[in-house]
């Protein structure tokens, strides 16, 4: 479980997070939704320990990410940023292999190679393992970066807008894959999404944020109401049902 208590974060005098308190249950997919500037990415960075908050505490299964040694933190939580740096000479296998750094610190063993193979298989990248990441399509590249995060084999995986720049087919494939993997491998995934329908379709729980505060947090079906969405996004929505799933349409 991730426990966040009274978390506040400020950049250049502007408060981005206001006294955020919440609990994220282990297992499945938790989607963070909210308008631009709601503080979703900042919250993810604070949970991962990469940004130090002004105030408040975070505990990841009891571990304090701000006080724990960097290696322990990297074994507890993995974060994929929105636009990771592209080192063009890397092959897909080499990129995914970096996910094992917290475990081998530069001396990879057989267990690390197995973990890389598993990650490549999990994200259907085995055939592309030898390809340079510079030659991949946007969707393949995104999968490769997520596979790197997966290879870190942390109980918690934080993904910051992984569907950016993906077409509907690749976005759907990725969410379906993450949904299946979160169940099969018993990993907890927290994912920032702008596509509310992707959250409605694949998330187990949703946390809605606005202006640096948590507006609502509940199971997916319970949270997605027209009133809550209007409050979060300041715009009216219509909720439809299609094959037993909720579909959100902005009016």
């Amino acid at each position, binding site marked *: 479980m991730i426990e966040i208590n009274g978390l506040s974060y400020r950049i250049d005098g502007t408060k981005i997070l206001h006294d955020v308190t919440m609990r994220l249950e282990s297992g499945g997919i938790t989607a963070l939704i909210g308008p631009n500037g709601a503080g979703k990415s900042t919250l993810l960075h604070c949970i991962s320990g*990469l940004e130090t908050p002004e105030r408040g505490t975070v505990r990841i299964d009891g571990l304090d990410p701000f006080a724990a040694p960097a290696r322990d933190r*990297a074994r507890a939580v993995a974060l994929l940023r929105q636009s990771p740096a592209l080192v063009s*000479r890397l092959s897909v296998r080499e990129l995914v292999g*970096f*996910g094992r750094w917290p475990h081998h610190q530069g001396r990879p063993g057989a267990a690390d190679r197995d973990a890389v193979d598993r990650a490549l298989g999990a994200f259907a990248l085995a055939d592309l393992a030898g390809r340079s990441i510079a030659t991949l399509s946007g969707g393949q590249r995104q999968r490769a970066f997520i596979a790197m995060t997966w290879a870190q084999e942390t109980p918690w995986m934080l993904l910051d807008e992984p569907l950016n720049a993906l077409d509907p087919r690749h976005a759907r494939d990725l969410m379906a894959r993450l949904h299946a993997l979160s169940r099969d491998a018993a990993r907890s995934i927290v994912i920032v999404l702008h596509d509310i329908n992707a959250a409605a379709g694949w998330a187990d729980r949703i946390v809605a944020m606005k202006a640096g505060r948590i507006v609502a947090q509940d199971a997916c079906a319970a949270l997605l109401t027209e009133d809550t969405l209007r409050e979060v996004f300041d715009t009216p929505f219509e909720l439809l049902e299609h094959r037993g799933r909720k579909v959100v349409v902005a009016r």
Partner: protein
Amino acid sequence: MAERRVLWLGLGLMLLSAGFLVWQIRAPYGFILELRAAKLGALICVGAATGAATVLFQTVAGNRLLTPGLVGFDALFVLLQTVLVAGLGGVGFAQIPTAPRFLIEAATLGGGATLLFGLLLRRDAQDVMRMILTGIILGVLLRGSAEMVQRLMDPSDFAVVQQAMFASFGAVDAGQLGVSAVVLLAALALSLRLAPALDVCALGRDTSRGLGLHHDRLVMIALLLMAAMVSVSTALVGPVTFLGLLTASLARHLTGTHRHAVLIPAAALLGALILVAGQFLFERLLGSASALAVIVEFCGGLTFLFLVLKRRRR
């Protein structure tokens, strides 16, 4: 494959060095060999230091167009020479024993570079364009300061400064060379030890920190190593702005890898190879030793333009 290419580079350097030492040698053999060995040592030290330091700098800055010279290191060296000559006079400057002068220059440059690049990378590491611009402006400031002092100088003192402003492989002190070689070998060994961590560092600050790397600490260590290598190299022969860019680019192209365990030795060997081959060509075959620094800078400058234009096409 990449490792094999590094071995070929090493072999090439050994053969070239042997040729450099014995080509058309005449009596007195001992004396000529000693002179040639000192020059060869300086060429290898400077080439290796510049190549390896540039790879380190490009990795921590996250930019393959940067060299320490481009962001003000050479200007720092010229300012230091100018201040020393202005303070002591041309004669006083010439009278400083070479060993203490070399050590003072190397230490001042090392300290200055660590401060300069530490400041640049700490404040602007997230914004590469701002970092480059800040570096260039700092370089202009340092150059401007040096020129201001030079305008107040006696013409004969100015001639002394002018001589120090360009790299010269002609006369190298054996004592300085020994110190340089020891510092360089130590810095290279430490850089190779850090190679796996530098590979992770190349992924960027946030990603590498997310993987549990002590990014900021690694950057400071890499900067210290880079400052040590470039300082001894510059104090030994003078500033060489573009050689590092040329060697680092060639090393990446030739090895086709991101791995610093291969890139650092490849860049070091290529730097040494280019300088030894260039000196051999100009001094022994064309009879014009002074052209080397100019030609190397010219080729390095062309590489810089090529890389900039290639990026723009993308």
